[in-house]
């Protein structure tokens, strides 16, 4: 029997935790090439991903989810459009303690919001670092005032799972959002 394959995109500027998230939610990780950062990013992060991260989550015998992580540097932006095509949704990770990452993230976020017609959930990472922006400020700086932003640490497996679950919930809501929701009268407190 042919398998259904669906795709989730994990994106965001450098050093946000994309590789880590994909590692936690994949059954197998096929591609990821971390190399020593040599440009201006070297003082923020020793190793960085070139090419792309790719992991597969085997859901069951008839369904796989392909998780694509885009490289975080803007010089790879030619890949954003290709990778976002046909995705179920996008997880957008951003280091909320780095002004440089947020500035870079704004361009990326606007790109995905305008070009990719799929739900996006934002994960605000590095919340434990000094200077981490609060969610309201982060939303303003990304130009994401109406987006759902979830504080998270992708190094924690449960946080990584939460982001994927939240994205899937957004997908469900975007599917049924145009319809009249059921109203249940007996959902009453005693």
């Amino acid at each position, binding site marked *: 029997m042919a398998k259904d394959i669906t795709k989730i995109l994990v994106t965001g500027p450098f050093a946000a935790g994309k590789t880590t998230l994909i590692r936690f939610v994949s059954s197998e990780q096929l591609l990821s090439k971390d190399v020593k950062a040599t440009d201006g990013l070297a003082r923020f992060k020793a190793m960085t991903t070139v090419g792309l991260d790719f992991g597969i989550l085997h*859901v069951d015998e008839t*369904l796989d989810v392909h998780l694509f992580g885009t490289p975080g540097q803007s010089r790879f932006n030619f890949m954003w459009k290709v990778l976002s095509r046909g995705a179920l949704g996008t997880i957008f990770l951003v280091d909320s303690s780095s002004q440089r990452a947020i500035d870079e993230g704004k361009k990326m976020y606007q790109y995905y919001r305008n070009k990719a017609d799929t739900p996006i959930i934002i994960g605000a990472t590095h919340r434990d670092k000094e200077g981490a922006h609060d969610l309201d400020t982060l939303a303003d700086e990304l130009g994401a005032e109406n987006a759902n932003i979830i*504080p998270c640490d992708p190094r924690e*497996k449960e946080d990584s799972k939460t982001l994927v679950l939240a994205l899937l919930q957004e997908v469900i809501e975007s599917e*049924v959002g145009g319809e009249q929701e*059921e109203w249940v009268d007996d*959902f*009453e407190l*005693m």
Partner: protein
Amino acid sequence: MSEDEVISDKKKPSFKHLGILRQAISKAHTGNIRYETVENEEIKMNMLLGNLLSDSMTVNGLKNFLTFPCIGCKFTVECAEVNSDDVAFNVDNTLNIQCSGDDSQEAAAPPIVLTRVLNTIHWEDEVLIQLKESFSQLPPVDVKMVPMHHYGYNDTLTYLTLYQASLKDKGFTLANFFDERPSYISLEQQVKVLVLGYCLDLIKPKAATKKTQKKNSRRLGIVNRILNKIREI
């Protein structure tokens, strides 16, 4: 003019009246909520297109409404034909209202008045327990995520905790939420986000969500299978 009404047992005042507020907000009603306190005092709150107004009578009434159980409560639609185009917020967050013939029911603003009042109220221990027991008896729920940081609510962390817990458990109930309370969150913080989520209809019975989803079966079927798999990881 139409009315929704709940009446509690006079011997046992309840929080059933929160259902009236929930309905008025969700259905973007315009009119007023009148309720009777245990001291037989009648209090009135004004609403426009599902938003509580910021006049002092409404704000004080809301404080009482959320803090104490009550006996009877009803919502009266007085001016159902208000268009959101005819609504303007002044600098001091009060509202200008003009009635017109248009029947648009679009909500005008986030629930700032509700969140501001919730930020300030406190419950007696006995009332907290009553609210906890009431919420615990609700059937399994889904919790909806919204950008709470724009609503002026100052405890987004507890709401996120509720949301995350609901995502991870297919049969999540509010009793589970209380049972798994982390030490850094108080019972009052939990009850507050439940009152907020309940009144804004962000907490819904699971059965209602499933009925809606049936209509979009294939794609949603795939998404639900992935959801279940992720929960198991």
